Structures are given as structure tokens and as C-alpha cells.
């Protein structure tokens, strides 16, 4: 167990999603109990149909709960999110391999 430590985050998006929730809490956008309640509800909803294994599915629930909480708090509207997601997808498809992927109209 200690000889070969497991990676803390298995995928970069796990780490990004984790950090977003922690940062939004630290900035006072929601309380941590509020977060655990939203996240717990999402895990319970998913667990009712399929046992969650604590890996990718755990962070899928994390992302869904974060989207819901941000929407409910008026921080991120669902429509804006789906527009930006499509924009990111287009940016990846339009960027030559090996180049940094940026959204059109944004510097960074």
C-alpha cells in the first residue's frame, strides 16, 4: 500500500471538479454542509439504480451535484453551461494536436 501509492486523482477532471467545489466554498458561495447535502443526494439518487464504485462514477456525481448547486445558487445557468461545453468541444476539434486548446474569443 505504501510502496506504490495510488494516484490521488485518477483523471485531471476529477482534480478540477474537486478543486472547484473547495474553492467555491472557500469563497463563500456555498457552505460545506450545503455541499455535502447536495452531493449526498446525488450519490443516493445514482446509487439507487446502480452501486457506485467510488471511482469515475463518484466524480460524475460530484460534477452533477456541483452543476446543480451552482445553478440553484444562481452562479451558473444551465443554458450558458451547455453553450460553453459545445464551444469547448468545438475548440478541441479545431485545435491541431499538440497546441493549447482555447475558447474562441478568450485570451487564455
Amino acid at each position, binding site marked *: *500500500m*505504501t510502496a506504490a501509492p*495510488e494516484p*490521488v*486523482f485518477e*483523471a*485531471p*477532471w476529477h*482534480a*478540477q*471538479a*474537486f*478543486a*472547484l467545489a*473547495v*474553492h*467555491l*466554498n*472557500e*469563497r463563500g*458561495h456555498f457552505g*460545506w*454542509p450545503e*455541499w*455535502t*447535502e447536495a*452531493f*449526498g443526494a446525488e*450519490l443516493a439518487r445514482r*446509487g439507487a439504480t446502480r*452501486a*457506485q*464504485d*467510488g*471511482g469515475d462514477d*463518484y*466524480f*460524475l456525481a460530484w*460534477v452533477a451535484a*456541483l*452543476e446543480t448547486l*451552482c445553478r440553484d445558487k444562481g*452562479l*451558473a445557468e444551465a443554458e*450558458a*453551461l*451547455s453553450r*460553453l*461545453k459545445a464551444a*469547448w*468541444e468545438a475548440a*478541441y*476539434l*479545431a*485545435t*491541431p*494536436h499538440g*497546441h493549447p*486548446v482555447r475558447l474562441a474569443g*478568450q485570451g487564455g
Partner: protein
Amino acid sequence: MPHDDHDHPHSLLPPDPALRVKALESLLEAKGLIDPGALDAIIDTYAHKVGPRNGAQVVARAWNDPEFRARLMEDATAACAELGFAGRQGEHLVAVENTAETHNMVVCTLCSCYPWPLLGIPPGWYKSDAYRARAVREPRQVLAEFGVHLPEDTRVHVWDSTAEIRYLVIPERPGGTEGWDADRLAALVTRDSMIGTGLARVPA
């Protein structure tokens, strides 16, 4: 990546949830609600700086220093802060001590609350439905699967973490370690022993 073995004229499209996270991040950033530098710092902290070694230092100190142990049992939040380990979510830390009579183990039945400052990010099994449900229902079977077989008359106490309270198990100090300093002792303290799904290592 295993699926990245054919030619990609464009950048590899990340998985769907990664795009959702990017969308959320870019929206919040455009609104000035987040600082991307702070996100990187949080990831760096939890990926590289915070881990079970912190908790092991606390346990080793408690084994070696009766006054620290007393402060830890009285108010773990304050005692851990003495060593520089403090929670970021305003949670309260509670230390629970294993004895010959009582074995403690920790779960979060709601989600995955965990003493991050002391143990880092929880392992996958701690976050699984199987552990979260079974730790409460059949703790002895779960312990057996972790290779922990307790005497029949040892009581098992399962602690359910919350957003406000996180538990640290203080495992029993192994025999044959009399006179050891804290660093040497800390090497015996495993992550699982501080969750209660393991015991401290026995010196070879």
C-alpha cells in the same frame, strides 16, 4: 492513453464530464467568481502535500507524549492545529482511540466526509456504496475482508462522519516499540489504521 494510438489531426477530445467541468470553470471565471490560480493551488495541495503522513505524525506524537494525547482526546481540532494541520471547511476533528476493548472505524454514509488535513483524499473504496453501506451493517465482515480479525469480545464502534465532524482513529501502539522516537513510530501508522480498517504495522 490506450485509445490514443491512431492519428489525431486535432486535439484528443476529453471525456464528456471533463468538458462539463471546463464549461463550468470558464463560466465562473468569466463572471469573476473564481481564481484559476487558486484552483491549481488546491489541486497541488491535495495531490502532493496533504496525505496520511500528516495523520501518522499525530498518532505517533499521541503514542509518545501523554500530554499531547490528552489534548488530542479533549480537542483534536486544536491539538492537530499545534502540528499545523487545520481543516479548510470549518470541520471539527475528533480522535477516537482503539483499545483492547474497543475498535473504532470510520465511514461517511452520506457521501465521503473524511479528515482531509490528516489523511488527504479518501481512497476509492471509502467512497464506494459497498463500504458506505456495509461498514455500518456488518462492520466485522468488512474488517475481515481488510484482513482485520478482532477477538470476539472486542467491541466495534462505527463512527459516521458528517460535514461538521471528521474522525481520526488512533490505532493501538504495537508492542516492541518502547523507546522509539516519533518518526520511527509514524512509519508504522498506515492510512487504513487511521480509518480503522487496518491496524498499525508490527515492527519486523
